[in-house]
């Protein structure tokens, strides 16, 4: 008897006095649980404060893991009845419901989201039948909303679930499974400011894991809003103009025209006012988990890469639009003067008969000086200039082109930009390292470069930048898409300050010479006249028709306006669209119209130049 009580006393002493603290810790671990509450993402606005990306509250259906199992005759078994009912109500396969309910990606006690954007009927049915849906919680969950639909999809980008690599790279307090992050465009670029700080809720739970009371609650901090330089009205016109350009191309029997890009920038600040790429995609497709069919539609060859932002990730020969660089470079290097003339007879034979080259105008332009050569886009004149660069040596044309940003990243604050290529001797040597007979830089390479053909590759943004540089006293501003960052309370916490990206170091008189020649392009007798006839503001620009092996010609127009007091530069490209003056020019006219507040008219123009 004493022995019994003594043993019990000894055990009690051992447990409560000697090891009490360990048990106390175990008791705390039993009853305290914490889970995180995701923060609403910051919004994305255009320069006028119009919403481009916002959040909407959808109803998400959660299952408390404590109810994923039930006790049946003393044993824990899967709560199949609940999953069956949820599957029926939500209209999804039971296996999907279970997969999400038993997801191991979440914290052990955190409710599992089995459906987002649940239908009103489903939400109503679940709320009205609490007995059938014990452990099911329907609560608002913010998801991305695109008030302007697919507008500026490539600029905005899209969101998706964080990847394993991102979680690993973000460290212990960083991302966790299931977090939504920016996957492309501004969503990706400004992820750090858009992403808020998640909140944490520490709750006391009972033995079934049901929360009893909140021990501490850190509310989530919403992410910062990002104000873009985009003007959604101009953006809409730009996208519409591109679509019409494709139409025009089809009407002009260029049936392979399915893609294109356009950029509009402020020449003094680098603000990207509009940036469009076709074909585009619908960013809302990424919200609820994409079906295989949807994904196939985005990646099929026939879809022409709708996910690619061609304005910064598309590489093209610039064609005649590059003649502005060739001409300015030649003037700047004193290879020619504005008065230098070339007699174009349709076929240029300066390097000898075996290397004779055609001007696009086989009939010949006759005597051309600098001004008329730019206006007429005379190939013979610029072949001659290219040959002068070659004979002069020192790759001065390439160096000059790079001073306008060609072959370099522009510095744009969007992911995925390509730097293009300015071909030179070193590039050719390495590019053809397995073909020694092709490695040498030839006069023909230089001559081709002079008219923007050959191995030169540019992005539409680079061309717009270069022309903005001509308009801005030879200085190329860093193009940028972010104007301001706003705290959740609306206060500006960061403002972009314009900076110079490249300085071409071109004299004012040479720039003036070029500008007047570019103005002539859109005037009567110029290759862009058809597109800009009757446009109330003087536009300085250049058409281009790029030849691409095995493809129809690519149509270009790039220019700036107003010519006298430049404000905006625009570049338009239509893949396999035919002639720049007839296909790209009219689109550029509409974009300038929107930028300058002029009437937006769709004209049809005929241009046969390159």
């Amino acid at each position, binding site marked *: 008897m004493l022995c019994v009580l003594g043993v019990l006393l000894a055990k*009690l002493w051992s447990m409560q006095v000697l090891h009490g603290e360990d048990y*106390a810790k175990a008791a705390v671990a039993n009853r305290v649980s914490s889970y995180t509450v995701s923060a609403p993402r910051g919004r994305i606005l255009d320069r006028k404060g119009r919403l481009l990306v916002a959040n909407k509250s959808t109803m998400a259906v959660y299952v408390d893991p404590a109810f994923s199992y039930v006790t049946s005759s003393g044993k824990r078994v899967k709560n199949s009845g609940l999953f069956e009912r949820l599957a029926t109500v939500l209209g999804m396969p039971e296996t999907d419901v279970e997969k999400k309910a038993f997801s191991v990606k979440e914290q052990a006690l955190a409710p599992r989201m089995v459906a987002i954007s649940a239908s009103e009927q489903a939400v109503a049915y679940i709320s009205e039948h609490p007995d059938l849906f014990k452990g099911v919680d329907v609560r608002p969950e913010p998801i991305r909303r695109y008030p302007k639909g697919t507008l500026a999809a490539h600029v905005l980008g899209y969101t998706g679930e964080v990847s394993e690599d991102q979680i690993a790279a973000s460290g212990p307090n960083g991302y966790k499974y299931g977090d939504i992050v920016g996957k492309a465009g501004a969503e990706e670029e400004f992820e750090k400011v858009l992403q808020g700080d998640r909140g944490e809720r520490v709750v006391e739970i*009972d033995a079934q894991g049901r929360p009893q009371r909140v021990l501490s609650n850190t509310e989530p901090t919403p992410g910062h809003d990002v104000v873009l330089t985009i003007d959604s009205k101009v953006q809409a016109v730009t996208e519409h103009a591109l679509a019409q350009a494709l139409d025009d191309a089809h009407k002009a029997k260029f049936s392979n025209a399915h893609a294109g890009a356009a950029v509009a920038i402020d020449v003094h600040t680098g603000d990207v006012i509009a940036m469009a790429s076709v074909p585009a995609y619908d960013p809302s497709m990424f919200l609820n988990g994409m079906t295989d069919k949807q994904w196939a539609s985005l990646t099929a060859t026939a879809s022409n890469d709708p996910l690619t932002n061609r304005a910064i990730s598309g590489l093209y020969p610039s064609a005649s639009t590059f003649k502005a660089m060739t001409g300015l470079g030649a003037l700047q290097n004193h290879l020619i003067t504005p008065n230098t003339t070339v007699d174009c007879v349709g076929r240029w034979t300066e390097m000898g008969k075996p290397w004779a080259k055609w001007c696009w105008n086989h009939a010949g332009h006759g005597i051309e000086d600098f001004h008329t050569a730019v206006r007429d886009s005379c190939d013979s004149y610029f072949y001659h200039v290219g040959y002068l660069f070659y004979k002069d040596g020192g790759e001065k044309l390439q160096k000059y082109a790079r001073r306008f940003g060609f072959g370099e990243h522009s510095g744009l604050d969007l992911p995925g930009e390509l730097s293009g290529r300015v071909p030179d001797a070193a590039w050719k040597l390495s590019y053809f390292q397995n073909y020694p007979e092709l490695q040498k830089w030839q006069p023909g390479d230089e001559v081709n470069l002079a008219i923007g053909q050959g191995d030169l590759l540019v992005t539409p943004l680079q061309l717009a930048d270069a022309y903005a540089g001509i308009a801005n006293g030879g200085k190329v501003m860093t193009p940028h898409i972010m104007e301001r960052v706003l705290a959740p309370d609306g206060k500006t916490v960061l403002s972009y300050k314009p900076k110079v990206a490249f300085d071409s170091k071109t004299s004012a008189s040479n720039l003036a010479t070029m500008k007047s020649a570019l103005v002539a392009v859109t005037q009567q007798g110029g290759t862009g006249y058809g597109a800009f006839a009757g446009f109330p503001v003087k536009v300085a620009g250049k058409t281009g028709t790029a030849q691409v092996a095995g493809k129809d010609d690519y149509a270009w127009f790039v220019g700036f306006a107003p010519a006298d007091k430049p404000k905006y530069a625009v570049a338009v490209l239509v893949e396999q669209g035919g002639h720049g003056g007839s296909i790209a020019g009219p689109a550029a006219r509409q974009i300038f119209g929107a930028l300058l507040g002029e009437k937006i008219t769709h004209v049809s123009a005929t241009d046969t130049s390159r």
Partner: protein
Amino acid sequence: MNERRRLWFVNWPLVAVGAALLVMGCLMVQSATSGMKGGSGLYARQLLGIAIGMVPLVVAWGFDYRKLEGWVGPLVVLDALLIISPRLPGIGARVNGAASWLAVGGFRLFQPSEPAKLVTIVAIAAIIASYKGVIDKPRDVARILSIIAIPLVLILAQPDLGTGMVFLAISAGMLLIGGLSPRWFIILGLSGALLVVTVFGLNEVLNKTLQRGPYNPAYVAAVKAAKGDTSASTVQSIADTSVLVKQYQMNRLLVFVDASRDPKGAGYNLEQSKIAIGSGQLTGAGLRSGTQSNLRFLPEQHTDFIFSVTGEELGFLGGVLLLGLYLVLLVVSLEISAQSRDLFGSLIVAGIMSMWTFQILENMGMTMGLMPITGIPLPFMSFGSSFMVTNLMAMGMVLSVWTRRRGVPGY
């Protein structure tokens, strides 16, 4: 002196310690049920149980126990009837799968196995007393054992292993006081151990030959289907076709050996109970402040695991107080047993003491992992009217022996 004389039939220490235990038990049941749905109803039922229990206490106290000495036969019959009564059609009721209640018209009255403990004690006391304190002849031992065996076998057949163990403890205590010679204790102890081994061995052999329990081909298939999860319900129900030892009993024993075997099943209760008691530390969390009990981590916290709540909320000091009260209860009972006018009275008190001692050991021991988990409640503490009434009646019987003790005139 006059005062004492007038109340000479009251054993004040026993009454005081009984009252103290009841107060402490009420406090703990109140605390344990406070967070439950209908908790106050449970508490009221406990108070009602105590009130009802006062009747058999007073009756037993006033009743001259000696009148029962010659009634071995009728007592054994009554005992047997009580034990098998829940299985009788019309008056029995099944609760949680076990037939252990008497009910009239669906209204549960009480668990007859509880008063059966007292009837068993009186019956065994009567038969042992007839040997005048010397039990050595094999014939006498056999006769006593055959009487003891009747309620024991019947209760084990219910099956109610826990109550069976209480019967064994009662018998052992009374045989000790009743003068069973030491060599018989050794013989009986050894054969008991042999019997247990035989039962488990036979269970294994029978299962194997009859393809029952874990040897059932359906069991093997079910385990495979459940991907090795032996806790799955289909698996368990097939395993329970085991012949002699039920699978859940086997599991409890295995878990007692190694609680980590099954942290969410049978081992879970033990683990949570130990956490509750241990976390109470020196002074406890305070009444109604125990998280293990209020958040329902504890199983059966107002009945079998009431001591876990006590440990958590009153700490080591509360535990020492409770053990101290039990010590006084048992020492005073021992004193009363020693002062009994006759061997019969001594044996009755010894049987009751043994019952209490074993229940205290088993109940508190299981909450701390010293004993395997069985459904034995804690005397005067646990929720449960049948149990409470029985213990109060036992108290009345002890007082009855005290009142008629040696040297008291008039008896």
